[in-house]
């Protein structure tokens, strides 16, 4: 359990991060208990902050070294948490406890949760700051190497061979909050290249290779800890929360979360859509209604419409207003709240058939984790006078059209979107685990941007089944009418440029497609060159004749004479 390493205190290290947290958040008087202190690298800097440093460790040699530097020390065995707490009480005596630290120690003991719990009891009514530092095994270097089956224990570092537990941000959070420690600050220690950055020329490890960069792209988007070497956090005693340390493989979730943003201007169509949800053949869904920047009175009307629905829908619905951002903001807001295995977007002016949810569900069963795509038909609608539901009504003014293809063409979608969001459903994990977000800098085509990025990660499961109606406003406001052509073009190019800056996985068949297209391009280039050569030869002769009129007259006469001679010969032959 002791810190066996003699690393001096330096700025820009884990130790300096710990001291930084103590300096900012702990008091300037009282005792600081450094549990698992080793050689006590933070002893002097802690003393400089005005605290009384007390080092505790099992290793007598290190304690003695600390003693000799003039610090109070006590032997402690953390494997017996009750005895360890008794040691702490005795060491503190009647003095005031200001703070506690535990650097590179928790990962060495098998009774970590029990010890943290006992320490929380010890800290009851003491308001002592507790700073902890543990290695982060979610560093991208470890993940990359594990793909090739490498999990390299080392003498020290992220995979110190004496570690008995490997911490990630999630595990540490769960351990601390279930023991009753509330995080108040963090100063995580970052290293782009960890001590596990070896073998240096391994393409999985080297950050110069496309493979490593692609993996890093995924890892970095997932959370903020891909290059965090050490998790350094400060806590205060707080309530104990239920936070399981062992993850259940099967999660209790609805199949689908439906994120419905509304500005409350189309309450008639909003109400119709709730009715269509009531009629779904599968009710394995939750509905999250996001009134976006609406006045309170309007929000009350939205709530009233939901409240009027049958119990089965009311109980599946949440109304969570979002008062900030542009039209993309409520999507991120709603996706964040979503609990379903899959998430879909339903705008308040669209319409769905009764098997909309059921079809998504069947497709997800067939290809779990893939993006799901059904087919939408299109129909024109127009605004009508105010309705009983509130706001403008709408009327269908055109027959149903079938403009979207029944199959999903991966490459065609890179050029243009053929899949309105109402026909799509996204695995929850792309948002909650892989960190994919809607780009809030876009005012248009934000759905296409999200779909493309999701497509590269998840692939797509497509069904030709028509499950929804995409309504186009012939009269009334829509995203087509409120944004100019230049807005659309700007966003279109931004999206393509963004996608093009990243590494991607393309489906099998791509190489053939690229080669076939290259062949076509070469053939076309040759044809164009030939045509241009033929044209230029004719053009050169004509230009020469125009530059020399005498020559032109001669040529013209020669042509005439040659024709006359020709005709004469033909006549004679007849």
């Amino acid at each position, binding site marked *: 359990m002791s810190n066996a390493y003699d690393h001096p205190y330096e700025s820009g290290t884990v130790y300096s991060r710990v001291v930084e947290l103590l300096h900012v958040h702990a008091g300037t008087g009282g005792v600081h208990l450094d549990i698992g202190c080793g050689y006590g690298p933070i002893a002097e800097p802690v003393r400089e902050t005005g605290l009384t440093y007390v080092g505790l460790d099992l290793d007598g040699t290190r304690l003695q070294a600390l003693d000799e530097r003039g610090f109070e020390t006590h032997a402690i065995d953390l494997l017996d948490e009750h005895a360890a707490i008794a040691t702490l009480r005795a060491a503190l005596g009647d003095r005031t406890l200001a703070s506690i630290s535990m650097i590179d120690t928790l990962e060495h003991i098998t009774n970590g949760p029990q010890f943290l719990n006992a320490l929380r009891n010890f800290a009851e009514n003491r308001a002592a700051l507790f700073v902890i530092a543990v290695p982060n095994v979610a560093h991208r270097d470890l993940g990359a190497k594990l793909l090739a089956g490498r999990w390299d224990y080392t003498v020290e570092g992220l995979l110190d061979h004496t570690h008995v537990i490997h911490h990630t941000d999630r595990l540490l959070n769960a351990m601390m909050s279930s023991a009753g420690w509330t995080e108040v600050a963090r100063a995580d220690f970052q290293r782009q290249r960890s001590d596990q950055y070896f073998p240096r020329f391994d393409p999985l490890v080297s950050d110069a290779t496309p493979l490593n960069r692609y993996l890093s792209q995924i890892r970095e988007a997932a959370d903020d800890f891909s290059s965090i070497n050490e998790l350094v956090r400060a806590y205060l005693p707080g309530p104990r929360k239920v936070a399981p340390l062992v993850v259940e493989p099967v999660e209790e979730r609805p199949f689908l979360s439906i994120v419905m943003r509304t500005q409350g201007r189309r309450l008639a169509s909003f109400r119709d859509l709730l*009715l269509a949800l009531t009629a779904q053949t599968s009710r394995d869904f939750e509905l999250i209604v996001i009134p976006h920047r609406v006045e309170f009175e309007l929000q009350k009307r939205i709530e009233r419409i939901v409240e009027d629905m049958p119990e089965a829908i009311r109980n599946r619905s949440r109304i969570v207003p979002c008062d900030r951002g542009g039209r993309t903001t409520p999507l991120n807001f709603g996706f964040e709240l979503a609990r379903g295995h899959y998430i879909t977007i339903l705008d308040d002016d669209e319409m769905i058939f009764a098997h909309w949810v059921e079809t998504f569900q069947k497709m997800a069963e067939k290809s779990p984790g893939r993006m799901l795509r059904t087919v939408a038909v299109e129909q024109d609608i127009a605004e009508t006078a105010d309705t009983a539901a509130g706001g403008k009504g709408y009327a269908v003014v055109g027959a149903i059209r079938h403009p979207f293809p029944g199959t999903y063409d991966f490459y065609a979608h890179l050029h243009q979107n053929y899949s309105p969001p109402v026909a799509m459903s996204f695995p929850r994990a792309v948002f909650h685990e892989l960190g994919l977000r809607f780009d809030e800098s876009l005012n248009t085509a934000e759905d296409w941007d999200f779909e493309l990025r999701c497509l590269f990660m998840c692939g797509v499961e497509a069904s030709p089944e028509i499950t929804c109606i995409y309504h186009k406003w012939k009269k009334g406001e829509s995203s087509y009418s409120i944004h100019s052509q230049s807005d659309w073009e700007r966003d279109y190019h931004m999206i393509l440029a963004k996608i093009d800056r990243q590494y991607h996985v393309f489906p099998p068949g791509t190489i053939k497609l690229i080669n076939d297209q290259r062949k076509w391009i070469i053939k076309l280039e040759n044809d164009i060159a030939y045509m241009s050569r033929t044209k230029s030869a004719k053009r050169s002769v004509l230009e020469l004749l125009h530059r020399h009129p005498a020559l032109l007259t001669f040529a013209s006469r020669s042509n005439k004479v040659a024709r006359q001679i020709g005709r004469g010969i033909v006549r004679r032959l007849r």
Partner: protein
Amino acid sequence: MNQHDTQLQGAASLRIQSILYGNTQQHVDQSLASLGRAVELAISSGALSKVQMAFGDCSPDPVFTDEEIEERRKRFEAQGLGDIQYEFYDKNLGSAAGHNRLLEGLNSELVLILNPDTVVAPDLFIELVKPMRERQRVAVVEARQVPIEHPKDYSVASGETGWVTTACALVTAAVAKEVNGFDSESFFLYCDDVDFSWRIRLAGYKLVFQPSAVIFHDKRLSQEGKWIVGAAEEYFSAEAAMMLSYKYSRADLADRIERQLLDAGSESEKKAARKFQSLKESGKLPVQIDADHKVAQFIDGFYSKHRF
């Protein structure tokens, strides 16, 4: 001269009636749950006074047992929908005859003709009764259907329309009785509602389409974006087209349809044309009405002008 005053003065009593044919309990329960909520809101708002639900079951096997109906009576009682009647006919009477049989025992002011594959909006009844409260001589009010809206035309100002679909239509009970319900002799499955509508108009009443009253009617499209039409649907639809034309004094049109179907129709359509021929030959076609063509319209194969 109208025999009945259709204008509603206060909360009205209502019978909702549906004909079942091979529906699942889950489907019917979904419909009942939406009706329960709509009845609850309608009674509390003063639109309706009391409500009865009546099912006529034309399925080969009963959809419900008595115990199951009893369980549903208890479940929906608190919402005002505890009076649920259920009769198993043990025979496929067809929609028109099934509804007529249910109409025999009718003793409410209003009757809602409703398809069982529907889910109704919570304010359905509140919106449906409005035209009957506000205006005179409105005998039928039709709800708007989603997800596929019917394209037939209506007056945006008054809501008046040439005929109503009976997927969901609120009818003044006295008027339904006055016109003797549906013509089940002539129409088994289709056009019974067109005929019903036109006879009500001939009797001097108005039909109103109310866009704010909404039902979800579980209709779907084929993968090509077309209506999914089965052989039975094709047969009865073709038969009904000829019967309707003939009944409304357009024998010329009925004959033309008959010829077209015999020349170029599908097998089902040819069969329907032969049936019509045989009825004609045996003198069993319906008595012709609307000789002056006051109400009947035949426009491009439809029974009114279409909006799109």
